[in-house]
């Protein structure tokens, strides 16, 4: 299975009935395709919409936070950017899923700038990770073998100590008060391989096979 699909499928299992969820651009967007049809999850986009539906092939005046034409589902609503970020910052979003360049074992993340190389800007990410009740990072475990899960982020931070979970193609990890816990490992990999691909110290107690992945 494609590693992006593995990540998206596993993250979809973290969403629950009634959740208001913001999905970032890239792998996070794919999560929408794997949400259990038996539960109602409402998606919010920071450009000002609750109840965003599938992408649209025709040009629409409704776009998602990536600027792609999309649809609005029954019960949805439009609002301005101040309202959108009041919803985000005010703790009304249950789960936000976003990508990162680096995450550390304290739950700090870096996602918006590589000084001297790439400066896309933070967009809504800084507000989302500070405001959402649960922050899940969706990313590949390493950058072509170079660890992205570190003891301490080296790039300028998006936020300090805000991440709750990291889900990669290799493993599911949770940041708790005592550190970074390894909870699940994709059965295509061994625990040792995960440890080698991770710079941060992993706390390992009861590791189970990664849920939702049948190899």
């Amino acid at each position, binding site marked *: 299975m494609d590693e992006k699909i593995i990540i998206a499928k596993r993250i979809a299992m973290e969403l629950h009935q009634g959740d208001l969820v913001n999905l970032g651009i890239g792998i996070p967007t794919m999560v929408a395709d794997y949400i259990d049809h038996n539960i109602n999850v409402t998606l919010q986009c920071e450009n000002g919409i609750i109840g965003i539906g599938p992408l649209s092939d025709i040009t629409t005046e409704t776009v998602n936070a990536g600027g792609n034409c999309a649809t609005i589902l029954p019960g949805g609503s*439009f609002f301005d950017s*101040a309202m959108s970020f009041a919803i985000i910052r005010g703790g009304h979003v249950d789960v936000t899923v976003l990508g990162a360049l680096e995450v550390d074992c304290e739950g700090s993340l870096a996602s*918006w700038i590589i000084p001297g190389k790439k400066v896309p800007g933070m967009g809504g990410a800084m507000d989302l990770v500070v405001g959402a009740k649960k922050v899940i990072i969706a990313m590949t475990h390493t950058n072509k073998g170079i660890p992205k899960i570190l003891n301490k982020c080296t790039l300028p931070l998006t936020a300090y100590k805000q991440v709750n979970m990291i889900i990669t193609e290799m493993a599911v990890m949770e940041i708790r008060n005592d550190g970074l816990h390894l909870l699940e490992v994709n059965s295509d990999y061994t625990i040792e391989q995960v440890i080698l691909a991770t710079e941060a110290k992993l706390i390992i107690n009861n590791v189970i096979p990664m849920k939702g992945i049948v190899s």
Partner: protein
Amino acid sequence: MKSFINRNEFIKLLKNNMSIMVGGFLTNGSPEKLIDAVLESGVTNLTIICNDGGYDNKGVGKLISSGRVSKLIASHIGTNPSVGVLMQQEKLEVELVPQGTLAERIRAAGAGLGGILTPTGINTVVAKGKQIIQIAGIEYLLEEPLKADLALIGGAIADEFGNLRYRETMRNFNPLIAMAADLSIAEVSHVVRMLDPETVITPHPLIDYILREDQ
């Protein structure tokens, strides 16, 4: 509302060195005709305040790639390669602001507030040089209001009084900038006789002019 104006009358309002807020999110809700008129006017050394840098050939991106902008205040610049190039050549100064903070700074200016306190950006480079204020044990950044000489509003439908409502996700920053500039000008898709008062998003006294298509 004062009145409807045509393109030439709008151009007469423009000056070099102006600060201009422009609505739209990745150009969804962007006032393209007003931006084209700014381009045609030849004014330069502008400060542009917009959610993002748009695209090379769309939105505020058109002004940036033509070298008319000396400063850009935005949350995201990744979709317009010109921004990065001009930044490196030191021809364009960019101030990156978290999206929710940008919305609230603009809202604060329009609402007569001296600033806002936000947890977004604490422990990041965004906090550099800013006052940190503790309320009930939680640290907040003091972010100052952001105003402009001119606000260019898009994505709207007007009535003959000058009341506005917005189309789908085109609302985004438009109602916020309408209140935060000395002069606000709206580009509308069409004008109806009277909007249902309950659907009006921007009441007419907040709009100075509406662009009328030349016949």
